[in-house]
């Protein structure tokens, strides 16, 4: 009884620590909305107010967004908090942060209930690892869909622990996995793999309960039908076609073995193997950050450096306990969840591998438990725990809470947040805002301005001549009230008084001089670099 209370107290402390790391300055760090956040937030806002997304489509299966067709579930879920709290960065991120805490809880339950007798130490240590791990904190603080996908998969895993006593839970597992396919792109593949794995593992039990098995599979298939019907559209496979290396064009541009028989197949096999193995590399897991600046923080990888030791210790511990269903599941998740990521070109793209990172966290948690149990001295245990916890929190603070917002404010559209504020002073002036080719500046401005969805829909209604799921192209030109967003600001009417806004590259000092422009404001990032400049024309 006392031990139970102690475990509950420790779990509470760990959850509170995790909650603090997820909620501290949530609206300000990162210091702006990433384009995916802004897009999901704005589309949720337009659906709330009009019942349709920015393109005038009612509850689409894949959200067109700016041509990337992300999964829609997170956007639909955002409708509720936006309705209550309004459209803001904090509103976008709060549901993800809550899900991050639930992921910690689900992990504790998974490990605790999978062992007999109930072992609280591995459950507590693994929960602690997830509470403080950079990957878990980072993705709990981004208002995107990746955390939701992992959460839905974990619900299925928790339910699978009790399937032997209650076979009907298979239906809920199938439901959870089916919903996960609407949460994130990688989950469309992972859900199928994991469901197949669970069916295979419990095949005897499910075969004795054929009605439940059939109902679950039919339910899963029916829920996937809307996606399956769209499979032959460019929109449904947009992300896949943009990112994968399994195409002749990519091979011709990059492939080795071009003069060897079966060279193309060999190239794909090698590419897949290198991408797959790279995710297991200790340098990628513990040292080098993800190269995507918005999905990493400076000098900090997905795990802390010290975790490499419990990682290697945890592997044999996991293997020795592979007869326990949950640890078998962890091995299965570790090996199979990389398949969708390994067929893409991006090296070590962390948002596609959250289930894998979760499984690695469990291995690390097992390693930490093993080390803790080997150390006999209580003083040494406490000292060691405080040392590594202190080191981790200092690293996280310096990298994520200090360096990242300063060095990467432009990655998170900080300049557009500031621009929206400054342009309040120029409401009666015509603004020409330069945008990069294929960068959706319009969605950033629409988000921060809380631009009228009806006006947006009236602009976009004729822009998809090939249909919502077929027109994958992207037009950068938009007009939001008095702001014209265009990649070409120099085709302007020279007789009009306007304000031109662009980066120092788009409007260089020599161009400003030759066009007789007067500088009126400068927007700097948190690293003091000039991000945008505003100039008044002098016709």
């Amino acid at each position, binding site marked *: 009884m006392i031990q139970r209370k102690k475990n509950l107290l420790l779990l509470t402390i760990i959850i509170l620590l995790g909650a603090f790391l997820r909620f501290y300055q949530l609206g300000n760090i990162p210091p702006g909305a990433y384009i995916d956040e802004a897009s999901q937030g704005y589309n949720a806002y337009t659906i709330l107010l009009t019942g349709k997304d920015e393109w005038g489509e009612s509850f689409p299966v894949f959200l067109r967004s700016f041509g990337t067709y992300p999964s829609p579930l997170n956007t639909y879920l955002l409708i509720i908090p936006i309705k209550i709290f309004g459209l803001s960065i904090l509103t976008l991120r709060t549901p993800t942060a809550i899900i991050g805490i639930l992921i910690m809880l689900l992990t504790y339950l998974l490990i605790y209930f999978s062992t007999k007798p109930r072992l609280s130490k591995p459950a507590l240590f693994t929960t602690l690892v997830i509470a403080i791990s950079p990957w878990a904190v980072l993705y709990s603080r981004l208002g995107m869909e990746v955390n939701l996908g992992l959460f839905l998969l974990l619900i299925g895993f928790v339910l699978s622990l009790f399937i032997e006593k209650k076979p009907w839970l298979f239906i809920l597992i199938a439901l959870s996995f089916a919903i996960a396919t609407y949460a994130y792109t990688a989950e469309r593949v992972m859900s199928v793999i994991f469901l197949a794995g669970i069916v295979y593992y419990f095949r005897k039990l499910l075969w004795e309960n054929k009605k439940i098995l059939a109902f679950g599979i039919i339910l899963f298939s029916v829920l996937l039908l809307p996606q399956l019907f769209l499979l032959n559209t460019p929109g449904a496979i947009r992300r896949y076609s943009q990112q994968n290396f399994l195409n002749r064009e990519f091979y011709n541009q990059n492939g080795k073995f071009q003069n060897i028989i079966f060279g193309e197949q060999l190239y794909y096999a*090698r590419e897949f*193997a*290198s*991408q797959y*193995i*790279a995710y*297991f*590399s*200790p*340098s*990628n897991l*513990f*040292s*080098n950050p993800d*190269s995507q600046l918005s999905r990493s923080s400076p*000098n900090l990888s997905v795990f802390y*450096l010290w975790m490499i030791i419990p990682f290697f210790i945890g592997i044999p511990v996991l293997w020795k306990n592979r007869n326990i269903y949950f640890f078998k599941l962890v091995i299965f998740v570790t090996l199979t969840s990389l398949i969708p990521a390994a067929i893409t*070109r991006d*090296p*070590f793209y962390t948002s596609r591998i959250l289930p894998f990172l979760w499984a690695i966290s469990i291995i690390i948690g097992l390693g930490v438990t093993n080390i803790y149990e080997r150390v006999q001295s209580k003083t040494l245990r406490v000292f060691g725990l405080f040392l590594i916890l202190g080191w981790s929190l*200092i690293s996280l603070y*310096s990298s994520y809470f*200090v*360096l990242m917002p*300063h*060095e990467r404010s432009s990655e998170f559209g900080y300049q557009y947040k500031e621009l929206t504020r400054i342009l309040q002073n120029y409401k009666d002036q015509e603004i020409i805002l330069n945008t990069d080719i294929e960068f959706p500046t319009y969605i950033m401005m629409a988000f921060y301005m809380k631009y009228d969805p009806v006006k947006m829909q009236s602009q976009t209604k004729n822009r998809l001549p090939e249909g919502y799921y077929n027109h994958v192209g992207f037009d950068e030109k938009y007009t939001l009230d008095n702001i014209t967003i265009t990649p070409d600001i120099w085709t302007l009417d020279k007789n009009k008084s306007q304000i031109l806004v662009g980066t120092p590259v788009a409007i260089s000092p020599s161009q400003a001089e030759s066009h007789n422009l007067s500088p009126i404001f400068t927007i700097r990032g948190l*690293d003091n670099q000039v991000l945008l400049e505003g100039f008044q024309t002098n016709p």
Partner: protein
Amino acid sequence: MITRTHLSILLFPLSMFLLSFWGWRIFENNLLVFLMSLILTVLFFLIIEKKSNFFLNATFLLLLIAIILITIPGRLNQYIWEKSDLDIITITAQRSYYPAFGSAFHNKYFLAANKYQQGLMSAIDVNYYFFASHPRERATIDDFEKFLPIFIPLLILGMIKVFKNIFSLIILLFVLALSPILDPRYYLGPVFIFPIFTAILAVGAKVLFDYIRTKRRKYL
């Protein structure tokens, strides 16, 4: 007395050695290092397999030290101790963000330790050995393919045996710990790791061979 069994065992390290791209690159550039690597591969293989004796162990250690002394002097990784222009710009900017921790994180020993650990992580990166660091190739460094990717399972099998042998584990950790101090642009790479790695692959090959042979005997 050298028996047929001894010779057949030595086939594993010899074949792994000859099947490696790395070995042939060394052969093209430095015959002495090639020959030393060959002997070291065989000796380390025997150490992992616990078929060596004091004399062979001593020979192994002497040769290993010799190859390290041939390789490292004159090719130290200056990057660890020197601050590049980018380092200076980064440090100056970062110090302004958080003055409280600035001096701790930008202390030259801390910086050197950080660069050392990055080099160490590269040395234990499987892709470095089997895919020339693809898909995260390193800028300005000529990463070359060292072993065939098909040998990766042999690495796993070999590592399991290494972890069960304290002496071989210490040797492996020692050469890995040395690798960051070698200039990463050296055209032969960390050659003192080469025989260790090749021997581990050979051990893995032997484990697989023994397993298949045992299975065949069961069925025949």
